[in-house]
């Protein structure tokens, strides 16, 4: 019989402690509220200090971006990608390190290496990418990176690029080359040799 009443007392007691906890949370919602109101407050939350600051971020996972002028077409990122979502086509540049104005190809990268190849197509399919950041390490020119974080000055963080149509997620980074120009580059006209 006593176990019967002990059981009832135990139930009431534990349920009451539970209710007191939820009541306390409800009462000081102003202090405990952790919601990050996304459209107004962006990540990371500037004023509430939850323990980190942004200046010494060393890595970020968001949209991939390529500075095509820096790219020397070495295909290291294509080999490093576990998912093969980077496609690069290159054409042999007639003269190493020379600008080709009509195509907008710069001969030298900012770090001074002369380009032997002209990148005619640099496509990343962001709908297949698994955001593992393996492609940014082997790049000699550091021209492929995820926007935001340490390179935030050049490109602010962008993880909001949802689309209505799937094909918009395939990003073309190379400069547009008309087929005519491509023909001219691939087999230079004889008089150039002579």
């Amino acid at each position: 019989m006593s176990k019967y009443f002990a059981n009832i007392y135990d139930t009431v007691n534990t349920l009451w402690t539970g209710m007191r906890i939820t009541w306390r949370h409800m009462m000081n919602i102003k202090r405990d509220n952790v919601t990050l109101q996304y459209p107004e407050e962006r990540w990371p939350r500037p004023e509430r200090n939850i323990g980190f600051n942004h200046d010494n971020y060393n890595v970020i996972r968001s949209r991939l971006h390529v500075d095509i002028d820096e790219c020397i077409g070495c295909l290291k990122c294509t080999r490093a990608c576990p998912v093969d979502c980077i496609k690069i086509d290159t054409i042999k540049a007639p003269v190493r390190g020379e600008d080709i104005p009509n195509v907008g190809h710069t001969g030298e990268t900012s770090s001074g290496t002369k380009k032997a190849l002209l990148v005619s197509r640099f496509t990343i399919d962001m709908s297949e990418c698994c955001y593992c950041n393996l492609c940014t390490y082997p790049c000699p020119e550091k021209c492929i990176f995820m926007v935001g974080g340490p390179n935030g000055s050049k490109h602010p963080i962008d993880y909001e690029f949802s689309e209505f149509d799937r094909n918009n997620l395939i990003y073309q980074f190379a400069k547009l080359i008309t087929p005519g120009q491509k023909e001219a580059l691939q087999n230079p006209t004889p008089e150039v040799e002579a």
Partner: protein
Amino acid sequence: MGVLENKFQDNVIVASLDKLLGWARSTSPWYFQFGLACCAIEMMASAASRHDLERIGMMPRSSPRQADVMIVAGTVTMKMALRVKKLYEQMADPKYVISMGSCATSGGPYWQHGYHVLKGVDLVVPVDVYVPGCPPRPEALIEGLLKLQEKIQTERPLTRKSA
């Protein structure tokens, strides 16, 4: 709503009624918990306290009948593709689909050697918004939902489609 669908000439009353319906549907899109893989954890995180999905009116419903938005969160495999199609058909009308994450959009990391993975959920169900990411951050999912809400608001369910 079947009988009223797109039956009316476009005049001021119907236009304002459209605006009301568009507002109502976009303000309370109840999402259908359809967690498959890692994106489901990020969907739960966006429904949790920090990125509160209920702020934009999204209430989780577990039965397909009472849901408006189906968030396909995770990898759809061949065995699951038939179920996704059946569940989509069970949902009550004005239904929308969000393909969350690379796997649902186009097979994601599994597109090359995944013999059992469906290469994109739009082979099975019509998709409204593709949210990229692997897994997409809760903010990216909420941004995708806001985009869907804008799309719902501009829909005009009552006016007769012209040509």
